């Protein structure tokens, strides 16, 4: 596959991921709206979900620019290395938020909800068992850690490759 074709394909994937992000943003935004209506004590969970939407947006933005540079035959540049580092940090932030959300959800489920939540509260509408929620969150956290590590390694390798390319370009 040629570089330009690869770049177009990758950017198309970014657009698709962006559409998926919009679906989640709409879903989480509505959850936040319901939570605001129900009361402040249930606000943290949907708020965390909405906060978790921001790092993937930054990742999509950086991925778009990385794939654009690939199309321009400028894959190994310092800018791409910085973008990959930013992607790594965003994945780490998302993983941390996911774990915080899991802990908060468990605390709310076992210590607060039984005592103080009204029967038609936000949490009573959330379907699914505790075990399923824990497994989901841990799975998301695992993916987050994998992306963090992979992006950090790629960032380092891209920086080294950029240095080598620069030296090669300036060897007469």
């Amino acid at each position, binding site marked *: 596959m040629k570089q330009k074709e690869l770049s177009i394909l990758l950017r198309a994937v970014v657009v698709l991921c962006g559409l998926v992000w919009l679906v989640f943003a709409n879903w989480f935004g509505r959850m936040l709206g319901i939570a605001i209506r129900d009361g402040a004590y249930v606000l943290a969970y949907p708020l965390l979900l909405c906060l978790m939407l921001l790092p993937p947006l930054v990742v999509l933005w950086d991925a778009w620019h990385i794939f654009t540079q690939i199309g321009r035959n400028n894959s190994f540049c310092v800018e791409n290395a910085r973008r990959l580092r930013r992607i790594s940090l965003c994945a780490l932030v998302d993983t941390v938020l996911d774990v915080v959300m899991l802990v908060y959800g468990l605390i709310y489920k076992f210590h607060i909800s039984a005592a103080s939540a009204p029967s038609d509260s936000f949490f009573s509408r959330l379907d699914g068992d505790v075990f399923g929620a824990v497994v989901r969150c841990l799975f998301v956290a695992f993916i987050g850690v994998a992306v963090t590590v992979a992006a950090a390694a790629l960032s380092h390798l891209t920086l080294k490759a950029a240095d080598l390319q*620069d*030296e090669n370009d*300036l*060897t*007469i």
Partner: protein
Amino acid sequence: MIYVNLDVMLARRHMSLTQLAERVGLTIANLSVLKTGKAKAVRFSTLDAICRALDCQPGDILEYRED
């Protein structure tokens, strides 16, 4: 620091950068990079071609000076 005194030799041989580029087989852009001191490395094959074109020794175009 290594300095490339290409313009000195070009003046002595009454040759332009364009003429040297044609004889050596390099682009003017690459020779400019060498002339302005922005090059990070020079291949022996390039040095050989330049010395042959200018009829000089490597020491005539390369000079070491302390910064």
